[in-house]
């Protein structure tokens, strides 16, 4: 069964004096939640903006919901998309939230005012005030309700939870699960919150310095990355270097080592065949897996110096 793609980036490049993005080739599968994860300034928001044709690539093609952006009927495609931008628009500051909602609703034929009111209610937001008077989290919740009230087919969420308190965060997760439950919906999000990825994502894309380092099915990714504590007679780091997926060896005693692997099953089989005992195992967290990716890619110094991960 061939999976349909909600967004396709095909050889996309954007060069600026201070930053080069791409070439990026990436497909965002329809019907799933894909989370983009990477250090600050790796080009995540630019990818979002390019998907909406708010920023144009120098090379390459971008297809959204089966259509290339930039054509005459671009607005028709955009009506099927919901977008929560990274930060608030300064120009909105003097608008009352309810006026912005009214303006917004005119652009979306599928705008559902009841759904909007329900979302404000469960998020605990009143739209009867100027947006500059709203707290950061309140304004975020309002923007979130706006982005989803026309039941878009594709939802682009740029760091959706920034500024939200834990209760609002949990509500947002529930709302997003319910949104996906309707079927045929796609979410592309970008986040730094590990728990958010764990609770929501089906696929994870690692990006750094304008490039895609890899795209993985979430459970497979977490099932592959483990730290193993191994020991064996006359075991040396040189021998352990051959461990499948090995990316970090640290001595923890005489002939005992702590090794990190990105191919846990193969690594355990290898240990068994080589008579190396595994005394314990620990799954890696998402940030550790990202750090390992950065290191493999030669981008790691910045990250692992500060985190002391693979020293």
């Amino acid at each position, binding site marked *: 069964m061939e999976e349909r793609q909600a967004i396709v980036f095909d050889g996309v490049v954007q060069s600026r004096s201070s930053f080069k993005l791409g070439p990026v080739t990436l497909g965002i599968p329809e019907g*799933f939640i894909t989370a983009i994860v990477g250090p600050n300034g790796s080009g995540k928001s630019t990818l979002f903006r390019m998907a909406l044709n708010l920023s144009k690539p120098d090379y390459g093609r971008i297809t959204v919901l089966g259509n290339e952006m930039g054509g005459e009927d671009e607005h028709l495609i955009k009506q099927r998309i919901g977008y929560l931008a990274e930060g608030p628009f300064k120009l909105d500051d003097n608008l009352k939230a309810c006026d912005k909602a009214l303006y917004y609703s005119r652009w979306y034929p599928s705008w559902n005012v009841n759904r909007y009111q329900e979302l404000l209610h469960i998020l605990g937001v009143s739209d009867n005030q100027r947006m500059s008077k709203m707290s950061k989290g309140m304004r975020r919740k309002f923007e979130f309700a706006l982005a989803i009230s026309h039941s878009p087919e594709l939802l682009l969420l740029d760091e959706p939870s920034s500024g939200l308190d834990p209760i609002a965060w949990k509500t947002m997760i529930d709302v997003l*699960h319910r949104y*996906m*439950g309707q079927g045929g919906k796609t979410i592309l999000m970008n986040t730094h919150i590990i728990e958010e990825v*764990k*609770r929501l*994502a*089906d*696929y994870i894309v690692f990006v750094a310095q304008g490039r895609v380092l890899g795209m993985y*099915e*979430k*459970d497979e990714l*977490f*099932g592959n990355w*483990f730290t193993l504590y191994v020991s064996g007679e006359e075991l040396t780091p040189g021998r352990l270097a051959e461990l499948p997926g090995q990316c970090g060896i640290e001595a923890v005693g005489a002939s005992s080592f702590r090794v990190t692997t990105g191919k*846990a*099953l193969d690594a*355990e089989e290898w240990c068994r065949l080589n008579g190396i005992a595994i005394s314990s*195992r*620990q*799954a890696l967290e998402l940030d550790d897996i990202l750090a390992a990716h950065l290191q493999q890619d030669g981008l790691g110094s910045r990250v692992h110096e500060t985190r002391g991960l693979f020293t």
Partner: protein
Amino acid sequence: MRLPIQINEQSSEPLYQQIEVQLKALIVSGQLAEGTLLPSIRELAQAVKCSVITVKRVYSDLETEGLVRTRQGTGTYVARVGEQERDRQRLAGVMEAIDEAIVAGTRVKCTKEELNQLFKEAINRHYGEGG
């Protein structure tokens, strides 16, 4: 409906297998009766914090084994599990363990008679002599 399925993230057993084994046990043991509507793929994924891809795989494996049925548009239901099938599923794990024991025996060149004797001794240890 919340299924009593627990995941061990630290286990080397793949996630889909952990879920599959537990869900199978719930169905074969009759805890989930025939015709029970299972959670949607997204719901179960949310409950056990895994991806929908994993749950899809579990449901499709169980469907192949005839333990669940998917009705287009309405969801996934527990299928009728016949007595024979129930016994087969119930004993499948036991059979597997016995097979492994025999393999272990042949590895150290046990004869058929020796193995027979060993099984008899093991059974007697557990159930008591002549039980």
